[in-house]
């Protein structure tokens, strides 16, 4: 295989092959929309459920960072010529199915941070060596915040499992939300993923990422005495 192209700037992207430009645009749109959905559907409502001012303001910061991720992706999208409307919910691109189940409890939010943010970490990790450097740099700027959000999930999980009632409620939340997460990585025969890897925009197949996620999610759940429900694999 020939060396992949490396696109160091937004300006250079203009002369990149059309397939490459379209692939970058798809990824940017997907991240911009899903970061905004996540902030709107989970993070912001969670502030009301948080049990203390400490947890509320920590959740405020997390929500703000998630909105910040949306803003970063949107700004990059605008720079590469994507109309703002295509990076907002309701523009035709379907959100992930998990966003159709709005938050009802604090334990659900903790479970989402524990596991869904781990899925986000894997998605961002895969962009850390992206051949489009503005996107690679954006991923690198985002990664410490995503890790903090997952740590937030771990810290509050550790609190909740201290009592049998708290642990049971957290386990119920894990049971409810975890089944939606493996499909977060896309289909096994995804044409988009093939193109992303062809141009080294992304590094791994959807199935490789999914298996890695399942392994890491199982490890983190076990750390807090939680179990993961069986899920059907994406086709």
């Amino acid at each position, binding site marked *: 295989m020939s060396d992949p192209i490396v696109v160091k700037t937004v300006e250079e992207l203009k002369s990149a092959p059309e397939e490459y430009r379209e692939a970058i645009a798809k990824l940017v749109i997907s991240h911009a929309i899903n970061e905004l959905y996540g902030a709107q559907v989970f993070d912001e409502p969670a502030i009301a459920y948080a049990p*203390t*001012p*400490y947890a509320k303001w920590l959740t*405020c*910061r997390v929500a*703000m960072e998630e*909105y*910040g991720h949306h*803003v970063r992706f949107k700004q990059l999208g605008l720079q590469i010529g994507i109309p703002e409307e295509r990076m907002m919910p309701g523009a035709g691109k379907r959100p992930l199915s998990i966003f159709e189940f709005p938050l009802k409890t604090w334990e659900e939010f903790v479970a989402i941070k524990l596991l869904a943010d781990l899925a986000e970490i894997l998605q961002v990790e895969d962009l850390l060596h992206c051949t489009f450097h503005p996107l690679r740099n954006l991923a690198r700027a985002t990664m410490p915040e995503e890790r903090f959000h997952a740590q937030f999930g771990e810290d509050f999980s550790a609190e909740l499992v201290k009592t049998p009632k708290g642990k049971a409620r957290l386990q119920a939340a894990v049971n409810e939300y975890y089944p939606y997460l493996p499909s977060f990585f896309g289909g096994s025969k995804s044409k988009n993923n093939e193109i992303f890897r062809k141009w080294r925009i992304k590094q791994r197949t959807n199935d490789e990422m999914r298996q890695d996620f399942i392994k890491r999610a199982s490890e983190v759940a076990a750390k807090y005495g939680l179990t993961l429900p069986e899920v059907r694999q994406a086709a």
Partner: protein
Amino acid sequence: MSQVVVLPRTLLDQVKAELRAAAWFAALGEPLTDGDRADAEGYARALGLGALVLGQASDWPEAERVLKAPDWSPIWWDREETQRRRLLVEAEARYPERALWTALTELTTELGDVVHGRAGVAAARMAGAAKASVHVAAGAAAQAAYQLALARLAEDAASPFESKFRLFAAGRWPLGVVGSTLILF
């Protein structure tokens, strides 16, 4: 029916300038001044919290204990939320909803890194802060900035969010109410 107009850029620029000029977290643990007391009383009065004793946390571990206290009073939080929702309705009646939300999101996002950095500096100077507490402080400050911008856009000069912001601007952090005590850091 209210007439919806474009966002007032001059007003938003003024808010951003005030946010940038604030002494975020610079006076944590320092003795309270008369100005701090006046702003704290003004904040409690504007929220309708009645007569409260003013207390102070002297260091980060004490602030963390206050913020995690199981007997914290949710009244101040709930009243702030009531005010915020009211102001949001008023602002949405004046300005296009999407432009308003975008402006508030961007203002808060831009400020986020600034207040996070300031909280980190304050924590490093005083020592003893849990790592997550810097994030908590940044969340509190960003919320105060959002609330201030909303109050200004809704043109509510008597809002409790004005006096709350003055406390942050003076380097303080209002931690909330525990029992009948309003506690500043």
